[in-house]
């Protein structure tokens, strides 16, 4: 299996409002292989979203290299799609026109765009809502549409920034199953940011655990359970427990304890 993404020795420092330099990410090394589903897991403020934004090309590292299939990442590219936490759909466009946005940017004809958009609309089960506006849809439906929009551009690597973070527990579980189905059907590589341990254990092939101030990778777990995974499976609970303990140990210094979801 080939390497899709290789992050080496990456550091990222921000200037705080007082003008001092704050280390957001320190010595990050991360490799993501073809068709792999990797979760970046960590408490808020550990820089996992920053890392994802750097891979997307929306931000630049202070030092180190980020290489996508042998080429250094300079900026955003169609081959790396991204799904945001919420409110990323354009509220003035219908769902169908939102999904066709990437195709529109690449100058594909309206007719072809419509057909492709409808195909992806169906993929996420929103056939009946193509002409609706985002505010007319529930949060879960909006995130389905956001996923369809990213996929319609046919990216090879899908970056997801807590895409289900704002959803209620039931909808979240539903969309996790949907995402796995789509991932298996379309053979994508996914880098998924979450602060939910349960979510990571349910989804990932590999969980990359991060700790905060400065943001570092503290441990990596391989999840060797067949899919569909059952939450009642004892191994599921065991792994969740191990990760939680590790997280609590890491965040104890900050006085913040970690919840399972």
């Amino acid at each position, binding site marked *: 299996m080939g390497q899709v993404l290789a992050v080496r020795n990456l550091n990222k420092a921000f200037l705080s409002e007082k003008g001092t330099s704050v280390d957001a990410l320190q010595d990050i090394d991360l490799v993501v292989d073809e068709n792999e589903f990797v979760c970046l897991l960590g408490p808020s403020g550990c820089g996992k979203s920053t890392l994802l*934004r750097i891979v*997307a*090309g*929306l931000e630049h590292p202070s030092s180190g290299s980020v290489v996508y299939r042998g080429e250094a990442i300079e*900026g*955003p*590219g*169609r081959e*790396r*799609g*991204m799904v*945001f936490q919420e*409110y*990323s759909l*354009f*509220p*003035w466009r219908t769902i169908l026109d939102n999904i066709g*946005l*990437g195709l*529109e*940017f*690449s100058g594909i004809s309206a007719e072809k765009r419509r057909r492709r958009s409808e195909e992806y609309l169906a993929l996420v089960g929103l056939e009946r809502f193509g002409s609706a*506006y*985002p*505010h*007319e849809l529930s949060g879960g439906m909006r995130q389905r549409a956001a996923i369809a*929009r*990213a996929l319609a*551009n046919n990216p090879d690597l899908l*970056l997801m920034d807590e895409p289900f973070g704002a959803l209620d527990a039931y909808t979240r579980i539903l969309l996790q199953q949907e995402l796995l189905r789509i991932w298996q059907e379309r053979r994508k590589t996914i880098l998924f940011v979450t602060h939910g341990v349960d979510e990571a254990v349910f989804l990932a092939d590999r969980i990359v655990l991060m700790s905060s101030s400065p943001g570092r990778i503290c441990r990596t777990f391989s999840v060797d359970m067949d899919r569909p995974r059952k939450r009642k499976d004892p191994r599921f609970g065991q792994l969740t427990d191990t990760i939680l303990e590790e997280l609590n140990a890491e965040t104890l210094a900050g006085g913040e304890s970690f919840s399972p979801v």
Partner: protein
Amino acid sequence: MGRFFLKGAMSLILPLCLLLAWMHLAGAIDNPMVLPPLRDVFSQFLHPGKSVIGLGSLFQNVAVSLVRVTAGYFVAVLIALPLGILMGASSRAHGLFQGLIGLLRPVPPIAWVPLVLSWFGMTSFATLVGLRSGPHYVYLSNFKMSMLFIIFLGAFFPVVTSAVHAVQSVPRTYVDSARVLGARRRDLFWKVLLPGAAPTLVNGLRIGMGSAWTSLVSAEMLPGSISGVGYLITHAYELARIDLVMTGMMSIGVIGAFLDMVFRLFGEERFAWQHQVK
């Protein structure tokens, strides 16, 4: 539809109360210099075509004022809107213009009057097209550059300021998600920033229109003005015709409220989505 009328009726309650209070107070005070009877003022509205105190009819004066406001406002929007959008989109443009705009904005239009008069003098639409006399001259000389400039100033700053704000407050997630989908700079501008800012832009145009209409009276108090609702008020005051003063005031109020409503209805209809977005 029923709710629409209910809301309309609600907003009329207090103005009607005011009219009632006026009617009773005018009777009790019985001094037209303090508060003229309501019917005197309303009879002006019932005969809008009748010439008043040698200034032409109410209707003519309102029309002249409307054309002035529209012309000054139009020029202001033509410059302020693109400038504000540019400043909102580019931090470099913002840095360049912000200081100057910040310094000029607090100066009220009326403070410009002496300068504006010495700059533009009696220049009007008529002198611009080379007319010196004739019926067209009489009409076109109503539109003096000095007045248009005062109205321009009244509209310019609210429009430019709110346009900057409109573009700057487009959520970053919209821009980011367009960029990862492959948007070029041109796409970002036309397909993200502009539609995202549109509701706030229209609201800024609305505030600018209100402000232009408000500076009308200042503009029409300039020397050389011989028409318009603002001048009607000044001149009626000199003749102690308080009923006409109030007619003028009410015309300004009613027309201003009407223009504002047109903008609001357009905005609400066109940008229904914005109420549902955080």
